[in-house]
Protein backbone atom coordinates (compact mmCIF):
# COMPACT_ATOMS: atom_id res chain seq x y z
CA UNK A 1 0.00 0.00 0.00
CA UNK A 2 1.40 3.42 -0.89
CA UNK A 3 1.55 6.26 1.59
CA UNK A 4 -1.35 8.34 0.23
CA UNK A 5 -3.67 5.32 0.08
CA UNK A 6 -2.74 4.51 3.66
CA UNK A 7 -3.35 8.13 4.62
CA UNK A 8 -6.80 8.03 2.99
CA UNK A 9 -7.59 4.84 4.87
CA UNK A 10 -6.44 6.17 8.26
CA UNK A 11 -8.17 9.55 8.04
CA UNK A 12 -11.19 8.06 6.28
CA UNK A 13 -12.80 4.82 7.45
CA UNK A 14 -10.38 4.14 10.32
CA UNK A 15 -10.80 7.56 11.95
CA UNK A 16 -14.57 7.34 11.56
CA UNK A 17 -14.61 3.86 13.10
CA UNK A 18 -12.39 5.08 15.95
CA UNK A 19 -14.76 7.96 16.73
CA UNK A 20 -17.80 5.65 16.72
CA UNK A 21 -15.89 3.24 18.91
CA UNK A 22 -14.85 6.02 21.26
CA UNK A 23 -18.36 7.38 21.85
CA UNK A 24 -19.90 3.89 22.05
CA UNK A 25 -17.13 2.72 24.40
CA UNK A 26 -17.41 5.72 26.71
CA UNK A 27 -21.21 5.36 26.88
CA UNK A 28 -20.88 1.63 27.50
CA UNK A 29 -18.39 2.05 30.33
CA UNK A 30 -20.38 4.93 31.80
CA UNK A 31 -23.56 2.86 31.90
CA UNK A 32 -21.73 -0.14 33.34
CA UNK A 33 -20.36 2.01 36.20
CA UNK A 34 -23.72 3.72 36.80
CA UNK A 35 -25.58 0.43 36.93
CA UNK A 36 -23.09 -1.34 39.17
CA UNK A 37 -25.91 -1.68 41.64
CA UNK A 38 -24.48 -0.32 44.88
CA UNK A 39 -26.65 -1.17 47.89
CA UNK A 40 -29.10 1.56 48.79
CA UNK A 41 -28.04 3.82 51.68
CA UNK A 42 -31.07 4.32 53.96
CA UNK A 43 -29.29 6.68 56.40
CA UNK A 44 -30.79 10.15 56.62
CA UNK A 45 -28.48 12.77 54.98
CA UNK A 46 -26.77 15.11 57.41
CA UNK A 47 -26.15 17.76 54.73
CA UNK A 48 -27.21 18.49 51.16
CA UNK A 49 -25.71 15.74 48.93
CA UNK A 50 -26.69 17.28 45.56
CA UNK A 51 -25.40 20.75 46.39
CA UNK A 52 -22.13 19.31 47.66
CA UNK A 53 -21.77 17.10 44.57
CA UNK A 54 -22.21 20.09 42.25
CA UNK A 55 -19.85 22.16 44.39
CA UNK A 56 -17.18 19.47 44.16
CA UNK A 57 -17.50 19.19 40.38
CA UNK A 58 -17.17 22.97 40.04
CA UNK A 59 -14.58 23.72 42.71
CA UNK A 60 -12.61 20.60 43.58
CA UNK A 61 -9.59 21.45 41.41
CA UNK A 62 -9.27 24.78 43.27
CA UNK A 63 -9.89 23.24 46.69
CA UNK A 64 -6.95 20.90 46.20
CA UNK A 65 -4.59 23.86 46.58
CA UNK A 66 -5.46 23.99 50.31
CA UNK A 67 -3.17 20.99 50.71
CA UNK A 68 -0.65 22.22 48.20
CA UNK A 69 2.34 22.76 50.46
CA UNK A 70 1.70 19.58 52.36
CA UNK A 71 1.36 17.42 49.26
CA UNK A 72 3.83 19.30 47.12
CA UNK A 73 6.65 18.52 49.52
CA UNK A 74 6.16 14.81 48.83
CA UNK A 75 4.89 14.75 45.25
CA UNK A 76 6.46 17.73 43.48
CA UNK A 77 7.22 15.90 40.24
CA UNK A 78 3.66 14.64 39.99
CA UNK A 79 2.23 18.10 40.68
CA UNK A 80 4.37 20.03 38.22
CA UNK A 81 4.70 17.25 35.66
CA UNK A 82 1.02 16.40 35.84
CA UNK A 83 0.01 20.04 35.44
CA UNK A 84 2.32 20.66 32.49
CA UNK A 85 1.33 17.43 30.80
CA UNK A 86 -2.41 18.00 31.13
CA UNK A 87 -2.26 21.62 30.01
CA UNK A 88 -0.02 20.68 27.09
CA UNK A 89 -1.91 17.62 25.95
CA UNK A 90 -5.39 19.15 26.25
CA UNK A 91 -4.20 22.36 24.63
CA UNK A 92 -2.78 20.45 21.70
CA UNK A 93 -5.86 18.26 21.39
CA UNK A 94 -8.28 21.15 21.09
CA UNK A 95 -6.45 24.29 20.03
CA UNK A 96 -3.95 23.27 17.34
CA UNK A 97 -5.49 24.66 14.10
CA UNK A 98 -5.72 21.32 12.29
CA UNK A 99 -7.41 19.76 15.34
CA UNK A 100 -9.74 22.75 15.78
CA UNK A 101 -11.01 22.18 12.22
CA UNK A 102 -11.70 18.54 13.10
CA UNK A 103 -13.51 19.56 16.29
CA UNK A 104 -15.71 21.90 14.28
CA UNK A 105 -16.80 18.86 12.29
CA UNK A 106 -17.53 16.87 15.45
CA UNK A 107 -18.99 19.38 17.90
CA UNK A 108 -20.32 21.94 15.44
CA UNK A 109 -18.20 24.94 16.39
CA UNK A 110 -14.59 25.80 15.98
CA UNK A 111 -12.44 26.23 19.08
CA UNK A 112 -10.04 29.19 18.82
CA UNK A 113 -6.73 28.02 17.44
CA UNK A 114 -3.22 29.00 18.36
CA UNK A 115 -0.05 29.83 16.46
CA UNK A 116 2.50 27.11 15.93
CA UNK A 117 4.91 28.68 18.39
CA UNK A 118 2.47 28.22 21.30
CA UNK A 119 1.68 24.70 20.11
CA UNK A 120 5.40 23.93 20.06
CA UNK A 121 5.84 25.15 23.64
CA UNK A 122 2.89 23.03 24.77
CA UNK A 123 4.20 20.02 22.87
CA UNK A 124 7.68 20.26 24.36
CA UNK A 125 6.32 20.77 27.88
CA UNK A 126 3.89 17.85 27.48
CA UNK A 127 6.59 15.58 26.05
CA UNK A 128 9.22 16.34 28.68
CA UNK A 129 6.76 16.15 31.55
CA UNK A 130 5.39 12.86 30.21
CA UNK A 131 8.94 11.53 30.12
CA UNK A 132 9.63 12.75 33.66
CA UNK A 133 6.38 11.26 34.97
CA UNK A 134 7.14 7.91 33.32
CA UNK A 135 10.67 7.81 34.75
CA UNK A 136 9.24 8.78 38.13
CA UNK A 137 6.84 5.84 37.90
CA UNK A 138 9.72 3.48 37.17
CA UNK A 139 11.89 4.61 40.10
CA UNK A 140 9.38 5.53 42.79
CA UNK A 141 8.83 2.31 44.81
CA UNK A 142 5.19 3.05 45.64
CA UNK A 143 4.21 4.23 42.16
CA UNK A 144 6.06 1.30 40.65
CA UNK A 145 3.76 -1.09 42.47
CA UNK A 146 0.69 0.85 41.38
CA UNK A 147 1.76 1.00 37.74
CA UNK A 148 0.71 -1.65 35.27
CA UNK A 149 1.15 -2.29 31.56
CA UNK A 150 -1.81 -0.01 30.91
CA UNK A 151 0.04 3.09 32.13
CA UNK A 152 3.23 2.34 30.26
CA UNK A 153 1.38 1.58 27.03
CA UNK A 154 -0.72 4.74 27.36
CA UNK A 155 2.35 6.89 28.07
CA UNK A 156 4.25 5.49 25.10
CA UNK A 157 1.26 5.92 22.81
CA UNK A 158 0.66 9.51 23.88
CA UNK A 159 4.38 10.19 23.55
CA UNK A 160 4.31 8.91 19.95
CA UNK A 161 1.25 11.02 19.13
CA UNK A 162 2.86 14.21 20.45
CA UNK A 163 6.30 13.49 19.04
CA UNK A 164 5.06 12.66 15.54
CA UNK A 165 2.76 15.69 15.58
CA UNK A 166 5.65 17.94 16.58
CA UNK A 167 7.89 16.33 14.00
CA UNK A 168 5.28 16.66 11.26
CA UNK A 169 4.86 20.38 11.79
CA UNK A 170 8.61 20.93 11.62
CA UNK A 171 9.19 18.51 8.76
CA UNK A 172 11.05 19.58 5.66
CA UNK A 173 12.51 16.29 4.60
CA UNK A 174 10.71 15.68 1.33
CA UNK A 175 8.11 13.13 0.34
CA UNK A 176 8.40 11.03 3.51
CA UNK A 177 6.32 13.74 5.18
CA UNK A 178 3.20 11.75 4.24
CA UNK A 179 4.48 8.75 6.23
CA UNK A 180 5.10 11.06 9.18
CA UNK A 181 1.50 12.28 8.97
CA UNK A 182 0.37 8.67 8.66
CA UNK A 183 2.23 7.68 11.80
CA UNK A 184 0.79 10.65 13.71
CA UNK A 185 -2.77 9.92 12.62
CA UNK A 186 -2.48 6.17 13.11
CA UNK A 187 -1.15 6.55 16.65
CA UNK A 188 -3.91 9.08 17.39
CA UNK A 189 -6.55 6.70 16.05
CA UNK A 190 -5.18 3.85 18.19
CA UNK A 191 -5.27 6.20 21.18
CA UNK A 192 -8.90 7.16 20.49
CA UNK A 193 -9.84 3.47 20.33
CA UNK A 194 -7.79 2.66 23.43
CA UNK A 195 -9.17 5.44 25.66
CA UNK A 196 -12.57 3.97 26.60
CA UNK A 197 -11.10 0.71 27.80
CA UNK A 198 -8.12 2.07 29.66
CA UNK A 199 -7.47 4.34 32.61
CA UNK A 200 -7.18 7.21 30.15
CA UNK A 201 -10.96 7.39 30.33
CA UNK A 202 -10.48 9.11 33.69
CA UNK A 203 -11.23 12.39 31.94
CA UNK A 204 -14.86 11.25 31.78
CA UNK A 205 -15.07 9.31 35.03
CA UNK A 206 -13.39 12.09 36.91
CA UNK A 207 -16.67 13.98 36.90
CA UNK A 208 -18.64 10.89 37.87
CA UNK A 209 -16.32 10.03 40.74
CA UNK A 210 -16.17 13.62 41.97
CA UNK A 211 -19.97 13.75 41.88
CA UNK A 212 -20.10 10.51 43.86
CA UNK A 213 -17.51 11.81 46.31
CA UNK A 214 -19.37 15.13 46.72
CA UNK A 215 -22.67 13.30 47.20
CA UNK A 216 -21.15 11.23 50.04
CA UNK A 217 -19.48 14.26 51.60
CA UNK A 218 -22.85 16.05 51.54
CA UNK A 219 -24.64 13.04 52.94
CA UNK A 220 -22.26 12.72 55.85
CA UNK A 221 -22.19 16.48 56.42
CA UNK A 222 -18.41 16.73 56.54
CA UNK A 223 -16.43 19.74 55.39
CA UNK A 224 -14.21 18.26 52.58
Amino acid at each position, binding site marked *: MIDVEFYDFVRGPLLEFALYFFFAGIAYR*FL*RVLLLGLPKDYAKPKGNPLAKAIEKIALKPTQGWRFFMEVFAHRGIQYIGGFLFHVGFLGLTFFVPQHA*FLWKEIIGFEPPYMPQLVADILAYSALFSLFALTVHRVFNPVLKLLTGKDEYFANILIGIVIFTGLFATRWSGGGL*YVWMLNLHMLSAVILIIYIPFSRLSHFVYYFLSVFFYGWNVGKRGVSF
Partner: protein
Amino acid sequence: MNTLSEIFRKRGYSRRDFLKFASLTTALLGLPPSMFPEIVHALETKPKPVVIWLEFQDCAGCSESFIRSTTIMPTEVLLDFISLEYHETLMAPAGEYAEESKKEAMERYKGKYILVVEGSVTPNGVYCTVGGKSNYELLKEAAENTAAVVSVGSCASWGGIPKAEPNPTGAVPVYEALKGKQVVNIPGCPPIGDVMVATIVHFLALGKLPPLDNLGRPKTFYGQTIHDRCYRRAFYNAGKFAESFDDEKARNGYCLYKVGCKGPITRNACPTIRWNGGLSFPIQSGHPCFGCSEPDFWDRGFIYRPLSVVETGFGVEKIAAGVAVGAAAGAGIAWINKKLRGGKK
Protein backbone atom coordinates in the same frame (compact mmCIF):
# COMPACT_ATOMS: atom_id res chain seq x y z
CA MET B 1 18.40 14.98 -38.56
CA ASN B 2 18.67 18.33 -36.77
CA THR B 3 20.19 18.71 -33.32
CA LEU B 4 18.74 21.06 -30.74
CA SER B 5 21.57 23.51 -31.21
CA GLU B 6 20.78 23.73 -34.93
CA ILE B 7 17.09 24.21 -34.27
CA PHE B 8 17.81 27.10 -31.89
CA ARG B 9 20.02 28.74 -34.51
CA LYS B 10 17.50 28.18 -37.32
CA ARG B 11 14.75 29.77 -35.21
CA GLY B 12 16.82 32.91 -34.67
CA TYR B 13 17.94 32.22 -31.11
CA SER B 14 21.53 32.90 -30.10
CA ARG B 15 24.05 30.47 -28.69
CA ARG B 16 23.59 32.24 -25.37
CA ASP B 17 19.88 31.25 -25.45
CA PHE B 18 20.87 27.67 -26.17
CA LEU B 19 23.35 27.61 -23.29
CA LYS B 20 20.75 29.18 -21.00
CA PHE B 21 18.35 26.36 -21.88
CA ALA B 22 21.05 23.75 -21.27
CA SER B 23 22.04 25.19 -17.89
CA LEU B 24 18.40 25.58 -16.80
CA THR B 25 17.65 22.00 -17.79
CA THR B 26 20.73 20.75 -15.94
CA ALA B 27 19.63 22.61 -12.82
CA LEU B 28 16.00 21.52 -13.18
CA LEU B 29 17.02 17.89 -13.38
CA GLY B 30 19.03 18.27 -10.20
CA LEU B 31 22.24 17.31 -12.00
CA PRO B 32 25.57 18.57 -10.66
CA PRO B 33 27.19 21.56 -12.44
CA SER B 34 29.93 19.22 -13.64
CA MET B 35 27.33 17.58 -15.89
CA PHE B 36 26.64 20.83 -17.73
CA PRO B 37 29.27 20.32 -20.48
CA GLU B 38 28.00 16.78 -21.02
CA ILE B 39 24.42 18.03 -21.42
CA VAL B 40 25.52 20.77 -23.83
CA HIS B 41 27.56 18.30 -25.86
CA ALA B 42 24.67 15.84 -26.05
CA LEU B 43 22.17 18.51 -27.12
CA GLU B 44 24.62 19.79 -29.72
CA THR B 45 25.36 16.43 -31.27
CA LYS B 46 22.53 14.01 -30.65
CA PRO B 47 19.63 13.91 -33.11
CA LYS B 48 16.27 15.10 -31.83
CA PRO B 49 14.20 12.50 -29.99
CA VAL B 50 11.47 10.66 -31.84
CA VAL B 51 8.20 10.68 -29.96
CA ILE B 52 5.00 8.80 -30.60
CA TRP B 53 2.25 10.34 -28.52
CA LEU B 54 -0.89 8.31 -27.94
CA GLU B 55 -4.08 9.77 -26.51
CA PHE B 56 -6.65 7.52 -24.90
CA GLN B 57 -9.26 8.47 -22.28
CA ASP B 58 -8.06 12.05 -21.84
CA CYS B 59 -8.97 15.68 -22.37
CA ALA B 60 -5.81 16.71 -24.29
CA GLY B 61 -4.94 19.04 -21.40
CA CYS B 62 -1.53 17.39 -21.02
CA SER B 63 -0.76 18.10 -24.68
CA GLU B 64 -1.78 21.72 -24.13
CA SER B 65 0.49 21.91 -21.11
CA PHE B 66 3.37 20.29 -23.03
CA ILE B 67 3.35 22.79 -25.87
CA ARG B 68 3.32 25.62 -23.33
CA SER B 69 6.46 24.56 -21.51
CA THR B 70 7.83 28.04 -22.02
CA THR B 71 9.99 28.32 -18.91
CA ILE B 72 12.92 26.43 -20.34
CA MET B 73 12.19 26.13 -24.02
CA PRO B 74 10.22 28.37 -26.38
CA THR B 75 7.22 26.57 -27.91
CA GLU B 76 8.38 27.00 -31.50
CA VAL B 77 11.69 25.37 -30.62
CA LEU B 78 9.99 22.60 -28.66
CA LEU B 79 7.77 21.57 -31.57
CA ASP B 80 10.82 21.40 -33.80
CA PHE B 81 13.06 19.83 -31.19
CA ILE B 82 10.89 16.81 -30.65
CA SER B 83 10.15 14.78 -33.72
CA LEU B 84 6.50 14.17 -33.02
CA GLU B 85 5.83 11.37 -35.44
CA TYR B 86 2.30 10.82 -34.24
CA HIS B 87 0.06 13.04 -32.14
CA GLU B 88 -3.64 13.03 -32.90
CA THR B 89 -4.24 16.58 -31.70
CA LEU B 90 -1.17 18.25 -33.18
CA MET B 91 -0.46 16.34 -36.38
CA ALA B 92 -1.71 17.49 -39.78
CA PRO B 93 -2.73 14.13 -41.31
CA ALA B 94 -5.93 12.41 -40.22
CA GLY B 95 -7.67 9.05 -40.64
CA GLU B 96 -5.84 6.30 -42.47
CA TYR B 97 -2.93 8.55 -43.38
CA ALA B 98 -2.26 9.26 -39.73
CA GLU B 99 -2.35 5.58 -38.82
CA GLU B 100 -0.06 4.75 -41.70
CA SER B 101 2.48 7.37 -40.65
CA LYS B 102 2.48 5.95 -37.12
CA LYS B 103 3.05 2.44 -38.43
CA GLU B 104 5.87 3.70 -40.59
CA ALA B 105 7.49 5.59 -37.71
CA MET B 106 7.28 2.54 -35.47
CA GLU B 107 9.04 0.48 -38.12
CA ARG B 108 11.67 3.07 -38.96
CA TYR B 109 12.58 3.94 -35.37
CA LYS B 110 12.16 0.46 -33.91
CA GLY B 111 13.60 0.41 -30.38
CA LYS B 112 14.52 4.08 -30.51
CA TYR B 113 11.34 6.07 -30.14
CA ILE B 114 9.88 7.39 -26.89
CA LEU B 115 6.27 6.42 -26.35
CA VAL B 116 4.31 9.10 -24.53
CA VAL B 117 0.84 8.11 -23.36
CA GLU B 118 -1.87 10.54 -22.33
CA GLY B 119 -5.10 9.22 -20.85
CA SER B 120 -6.15 6.01 -19.17
CA VAL B 121 -6.49 2.61 -20.80
CA THR B 122 -9.44 0.21 -20.89
CA PRO B 123 -8.19 -3.38 -21.21
CA ASN B 124 -11.77 -4.65 -21.15
CA GLY B 125 -14.37 -3.30 -23.50
CA VAL B 126 -14.36 -0.97 -26.48
CA TYR B 127 -14.81 2.38 -24.80
CA CYS B 128 -11.99 4.06 -26.69
CA THR B 129 -11.00 2.89 -30.16
CA VAL B 130 -8.89 4.51 -32.84
CA GLY B 131 -8.89 3.17 -36.40
CA GLY B 132 -10.93 0.16 -35.32
CA LYS B 133 -8.45 -0.91 -32.64
CA SER B 134 -9.01 -0.69 -28.91
CA ASN B 135 -6.75 1.58 -26.88
CA TYR B 136 -5.29 -1.42 -25.06
CA GLU B 137 -4.35 -3.04 -28.38
CA LEU B 138 -2.80 0.21 -29.63
CA LEU B 139 -0.80 0.62 -26.44
CA LYS B 140 0.55 -2.93 -26.51
CA GLU B 141 1.49 -2.57 -30.15
CA ALA B 142 3.32 0.74 -29.64
CA ALA B 143 5.02 -0.28 -26.40
CA GLU B 144 6.54 -3.41 -27.90
CA ASN B 145 9.56 -1.76 -29.54
CA THR B 146 9.89 1.49 -27.64
CA ALA B 147 13.00 2.84 -25.94
CA ALA B 148 11.00 4.27 -23.05
CA VAL B 149 7.38 4.67 -21.99
CA VAL B 150 6.32 7.94 -20.40
CA SER B 151 2.84 8.36 -18.93
CA VAL B 152 1.88 12.01 -18.86
CA GLY B 153 -0.95 13.27 -16.70
CA SER B 154 -2.88 11.71 -13.86
CA CYS B 155 -5.15 9.72 -16.20
CA ALA B 156 -2.22 7.83 -17.75
CA SER B 157 -0.28 7.64 -14.47
CA TRP B 158 -3.07 6.63 -12.06
CA GLY B 159 -6.27 6.29 -14.07
CA GLY B 160 -7.39 9.82 -13.18
CA ILE B 161 -10.97 11.00 -13.62
CA PRO B 162 -11.96 8.13 -15.98
CA LYS B 163 -11.00 5.67 -13.21
CA ALA B 164 -12.87 7.61 -10.49
CA GLU B 165 -15.70 5.75 -8.78
CA PRO B 166 -17.66 3.95 -10.18
CA ASN B 167 -15.13 3.64 -13.05
CA PRO B 168 -17.74 2.79 -15.71
CA THR B 169 -15.18 1.96 -18.41
CA GLY B 170 -12.90 -0.16 -16.23
CA ALA B 171 -10.06 2.33 -16.78
CA VAL B 172 -6.56 1.46 -15.61
CA PRO B 173 -3.28 3.39 -15.61
CA VAL B 174 -0.64 2.66 -18.23
CA TYR B 175 1.74 0.89 -15.83
CA GLU B 176 -0.99 -1.59 -15.00
CA ALA B 177 -1.76 -2.22 -18.65
CA LEU B 178 1.96 -2.72 -19.37
CA LYS B 179 2.88 -4.92 -16.43
CA GLY B 180 6.56 -5.78 -16.33
CA LYS B 181 7.63 -2.78 -18.39
CA GLN B 182 9.34 0.28 -16.89
CA VAL B 183 6.99 3.25 -17.13
CA VAL B 184 7.88 6.80 -16.12
CA ASN B 185 4.93 8.54 -14.54
CA ILE B 186 4.61 12.31 -14.83
CA PRO B 187 1.33 12.88 -13.02
CA GLY B 188 -0.64 16.09 -12.69
CA CYS B 189 -3.85 17.43 -14.09
CA PRO B 190 -2.16 18.55 -16.23
CA PRO B 191 1.51 17.94 -15.45
CA ILE B 192 3.95 20.82 -15.76
CA GLY B 193 5.13 21.09 -19.36
CA ASP B 194 8.73 21.78 -18.36
CA VAL B 195 8.81 18.58 -16.30
CA MET B 196 7.78 16.57 -19.38
CA VAL B 197 10.40 18.29 -21.54
CA ALA B 198 13.14 17.94 -18.91
CA THR B 199 12.43 14.21 -18.51
CA ILE B 200 12.71 13.67 -22.27
CA VAL B 201 15.90 15.77 -22.38
CA HIS B 202 17.39 13.67 -19.58
CA PHE B 203 16.72 10.52 -21.57
CA LEU B 204 18.13 12.06 -24.72
CA ALA B 205 21.25 13.54 -23.14
CA LEU B 206 22.23 10.78 -20.75
CA GLY B 207 20.65 7.80 -22.49
CA LYS B 208 18.83 6.71 -19.35
CA LEU B 209 15.75 7.60 -17.35
CA PRO B 210 16.05 10.02 -14.43
CA PRO B 211 16.03 8.53 -10.90
CA LEU B 212 12.46 7.51 -10.09
CA ASP B 213 10.58 7.07 -6.82
CA ASN B 214 8.65 3.90 -5.92
CA LEU B 215 5.71 5.10 -8.02
CA GLY B 216 7.82 5.71 -11.09
CA ARG B 217 7.91 9.52 -10.80
CA PRO B 218 11.13 11.48 -11.40
CA LYS B 219 12.44 12.19 -7.91
CA THR B 220 13.75 15.59 -8.87
CA PHE B 221 10.25 16.90 -9.46
CA TYR B 222 8.16 14.68 -7.22
CA GLY B 223 10.55 14.19 -4.31
CA GLN B 224 9.00 16.85 -2.09
CA THR B 225 5.53 17.94 -1.13
CA ILE B 226 3.89 21.15 -2.31
CA HIS B 227 3.64 22.05 1.38
CA ASP B 228 7.43 21.85 1.81
CA ARG B 229 8.04 24.34 -0.97
CA CYS B 230 4.95 26.54 -0.62
CA TYR B 231 5.50 30.25 -0.18
CA ARG B 232 2.44 30.34 2.15
CA ARG B 233 4.08 27.83 4.52
CA ALA B 234 5.13 30.58 6.94
CA PHE B 235 1.46 31.43 7.48
CA TYR B 236 0.66 27.77 8.10
CA ASN B 237 3.36 27.72 10.77
CA ALA B 238 2.02 30.92 12.27
CA GLY B 239 -1.53 29.47 12.44
CA LYS B 240 -2.92 32.05 10.01
CA PHE B 241 -5.49 30.67 7.59
CA ALA B 242 -7.76 32.12 4.91
CA GLU B 243 -11.44 31.60 5.79
CA SER B 244 -12.83 31.64 2.26
CA PHE B 245 -11.78 32.15 -1.32
CA ASP B 246 -10.34 35.51 -2.12
CA ASP B 247 -11.03 37.00 1.29
CA GLU B 248 -8.71 39.60 2.76
CA LYS B 249 -6.60 36.91 4.41
CA ALA B 250 -6.23 34.86 1.23
CA ARG B 251 -5.14 37.96 -0.64
CA ASN B 252 -2.59 38.69 2.06
CA GLY B 253 -1.01 35.31 1.45
CA TYR B 254 -2.50 33.36 4.39
CA CYS B 255 -2.39 29.58 4.19
CA LEU B 256 -5.22 27.88 2.25
CA TYR B 257 -5.30 24.73 4.41
CA LYS B 258 -8.69 25.62 5.86
CA VAL B 259 -10.29 25.96 2.43
CA GLY B 260 -9.07 22.52 1.47
CA CYS B 261 -5.42 22.68 0.42
CA LYS B 262 -4.00 19.18 -0.12
CA GLY B 263 -0.42 20.47 -0.44
CA PRO B 264 0.81 18.53 2.62
CA ILE B 265 0.19 15.17 0.93
CA THR B 266 0.88 16.13 -2.67
CA ARG B 267 4.23 15.79 -4.38
CA ASN B 268 4.88 18.03 -7.33
CA ALA B 269 7.10 20.89 -8.45
CA CYS B 270 4.32 23.49 -8.91
CA PRO B 271 5.60 25.96 -6.25
CA THR B 272 9.10 26.05 -7.72
CA ILE B 273 8.69 25.77 -11.51
CA ARG B 274 5.15 27.21 -11.65
CA TRP B 275 3.20 27.74 -14.86
CA ASN B 276 3.17 30.08 -17.84
CA GLY B 277 6.83 30.87 -17.74
CA GLY B 278 7.07 30.77 -13.96
CA LEU B 279 4.23 33.27 -13.53
CA SER B 280 1.97 31.49 -11.05
CA PHE B 281 0.51 28.22 -9.76
CA PRO B 282 -2.90 27.39 -8.23
CA ILE B 283 -2.00 28.31 -4.63
CA GLN B 284 -0.52 31.61 -5.76
CA SER B 285 -3.76 32.33 -7.61
CA GLY B 286 -5.72 31.79 -4.39
CA HIS B 287 -6.99 28.27 -5.06
CA PRO B 288 -6.01 25.41 -2.75
CA CYS B 289 -4.01 22.54 -4.19
CA PHE B 290 -6.37 19.62 -4.67
CA GLY B 291 -3.65 17.04 -4.97
CA CYS B 292 -4.03 16.25 -8.68
CA SER B 293 -0.65 14.52 -8.93
CA GLU B 294 -1.41 11.89 -6.27
CA PRO B 295 -3.18 8.60 -7.04
CA ASP B 296 -7.00 8.60 -6.97
CA PHE B 297 -7.17 12.29 -6.03
CA TRP B 298 -10.64 12.62 -7.51
CA ASP B 299 -12.09 9.93 -5.24
CA ARG B 300 -10.72 11.69 -2.20
CA GLY B 301 -13.79 13.96 -2.45
CA PHE B 302 -13.75 16.74 0.14
CA ILE B 303 -11.89 19.07 -2.19
CA TYR B 304 -12.82 22.23 -0.33
CA ARG B 305 -12.62 20.94 3.25
CA PRO B 306 -9.52 20.87 5.45
CA LEU B 307 -7.29 17.84 5.21
CA SER B 308 -7.67 17.05 8.92
CA VAL B 309 -11.45 16.54 8.97
CA VAL B 310 -13.20 13.19 8.69
CA GLU B 311 -13.75 12.63 5.00
CA THR B 312 -17.35 11.48 5.32
CA GLY B 313 -18.17 13.97 8.10
CA PHE B 314 -18.78 13.21 11.77
CA GLY B 315 -21.39 15.31 13.52
CA VAL B 316 -23.92 15.17 16.35
CA GLU B 317 -26.01 12.49 14.65
CA LYS B 318 -23.11 10.08 14.41
CA ILE B 319 -22.08 10.84 18.01
CA ALA B 320 -25.65 10.10 19.13
CA ALA B 321 -25.63 6.84 17.17
CA GLY B 322 -22.36 5.78 18.81
CA VAL B 323 -23.55 6.76 22.28
CA ALA B 324 -26.88 4.96 21.74
CA VAL B 325 -25.15 1.72 20.72
CA GLY B 326 -22.73 1.91 23.67
CA ALA B 327 -25.46 2.82 26.17
CA ALA B 328 -27.72 0.02 24.94
CA ALA B 329 -24.87 -2.50 25.19
CA GLY B 330 -23.86 -1.23 28.65
CA ALA B 331 -27.43 -1.26 30.00
CA GLY B 332 -28.13 -4.65 28.42
CA ILE B 333 -25.06 -6.31 29.90
CA ALA B 334 -25.68 -4.67 33.29
CA TRP B 335 -29.25 -6.04 33.22
CA ILE B 336 -28.03 -9.53 32.30
CA ASN B 337 -25.43 -9.41 35.09
CA LYS B 338 -28.09 -8.36 37.56
CA LYS B 339 -30.32 -11.23 36.48
CA LEU B 340 -27.45 -13.71 36.75
CA ARG B 341 -26.51 -12.45 40.21
CA GLY B 342 -30.18 -12.61 41.21
CA GLY B 343 -30.35 -16.17 39.91
CA LYS B 344 -27.37 -17.22 42.02
CA LYS B 345 -29.02 -15.87 45.14
